[in-house]
């Protein structure tokens, strides 16, 4: 497999839809194939990084547990768009561990392929 760099952008909040989980599944498969993609959370996607999440009322899985395991797949750090975080009145200390701010424009420009969820 030729090695293109892949950026996975998550732009939706967790729980309300399956976007976050599907984005993470995609990133995990890339990593399992030996090419961990870069993972970036932007817009409402930063809400997936909030600490203290749980399963849904029917026992449906969220995405927080999965996110905690990504470093074992060499997908780290969890990049986030700082403006999206600020716009939602949140700060880094409210997020799970392993998050780092990113320059989203530069990050897009540095990757060959971008997948959004």
């Amino acid at each position: 497999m030729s090695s293109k760099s892949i950026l996975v952008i998550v732009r939706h909040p967790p729980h309300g839809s399956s976007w976050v989980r599907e984005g993470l599944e995609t990133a995990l498969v890339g990593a399992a194939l030996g090419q961990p993609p870069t993972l970036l959370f932007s817009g409402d996607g930063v809400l997936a990084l909030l600490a203290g999440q749980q399963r849904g009322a029917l026992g449906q899985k969220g995405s927080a547990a999965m996110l905690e395991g990504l470093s074992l797949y060499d997908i780290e750090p969890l990049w986030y768009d700082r403006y999206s975080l600020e716009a939602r009145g949140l700060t880094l200390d409210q997020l799970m561990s392993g998050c780092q701010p990113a320059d989203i424009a530069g990050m897009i420009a540095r990757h060959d392929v971008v997948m959004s969820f």
Partner: protein
Amino acid sequence: MSTLHLINRSPFAASALQELVSAVSEGDHVLLIEDGVYAALGTAASKWPEGVEIRALREDCVSRGIAPASTLLETIDVAGFVALTASTDRTVSWF
């Protein structure tokens, strides 16, 4: 090295267009498709960074009754859409 950004959300319902402002680089292209073409109606698409070209997909304007003549935005047809994906290095979808 440039990026084509596709937006299919109305700017009046979603913040994708605003968010995109911080995600574009000089030389990038933005194409409004589907409900994204409604950005041609307000002022949302007028406050755009320098050096970034924004256009609307003509077929989606026409089907929605937004005549190209009534907008300030340049419109392109699907052939132009294909050409943009080929001339840029990558495509990012905002939805």
